[in-house]
């Protein structure tokens, strides 16, 4: 189930090295077929399929048909939400760096 209200299932879905790699490949050059996504990974197509479905359940990826193949792509909006945690900390560093600037440039 995709659960819009809670972030916990989203982070659980992200907490796996293979899934993060899949997201990385889709981010760099999606949409991609399962065959392409399993190339060079040492992970079976069946396992890749399972991981894609886990990511799909929390709305991070979606699939579509391209001709006769099924291709997978990122749901970028959902991924933005996953990034928010680190973005909060990045924003705090922005503030801190500006305070440092004011402090040393006097």
């Amino acid at each position, binding site marked *: 189930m995709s659960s819009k209200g809670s*972030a916990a299932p989203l982070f659980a879905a992200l907490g796996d090295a293979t899934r*993060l790699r899949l997201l990385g490949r889709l981010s760099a050059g999606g949409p991609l077929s399962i065959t392409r996504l399993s190339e060079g990974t040492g992970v079976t197509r069946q396992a890749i399929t399972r991981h894609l479905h886990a990511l799909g359940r929390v709305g991070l990826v979606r699939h579509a048909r391209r001709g006769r193949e099924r291709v997978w792509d990122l749901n970028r909006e959902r991924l933005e939400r996953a990034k928010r945690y680190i973005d909060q900390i990045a924003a705090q560093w922005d503030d801190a760096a500006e305070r440092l600037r004011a402090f040393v440039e006097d």
Partner: protein
Amino acid sequence: MAVQTPAPEDTVSTDRIEKRVVLRAPRTRVWRALTNAAEFGTWFRVKLDGAFIEGKAVRGRLSIPGYEHVTLELLVERIDPERYFSYRWHPYAVDPAVDYSAEPTTLVEFTLEDTDGGTALTIVESGFDRIPLARRAEAFRMNDNGWTGQIKQLAKYVE
């Protein structure tokens, strides 16, 4: 890592934050602001209870209005004079009811270089992928519950 923002100077992944700023001040001045604990405390807004010494922990309390209850502990890793300063800490450890000490830390690194008109400072915080997922989700929830100022900063940051 999976996700990168396209900003030219600052990058964000799920594991790492990198910021680069050019400060119109000599390297010696920036170095002191970073590594003298009292000066660090002034701009970072934390009251620290000791000096930065390699291998030693320094404790402190935030001096940001509304966050005075938040305590920090910085474990200093390396001090390479006027070039590099690093410490470990628990990021986003803002809930006084939670004991963060058993969690993995992130590494914060400051690197200084001379540049035209001043000093280039690079700040890197890394190791977020090791932070428990439940806590990352918790921070996310707290954000939804009123970290509005941070969200404004975020909007500025991500676009």
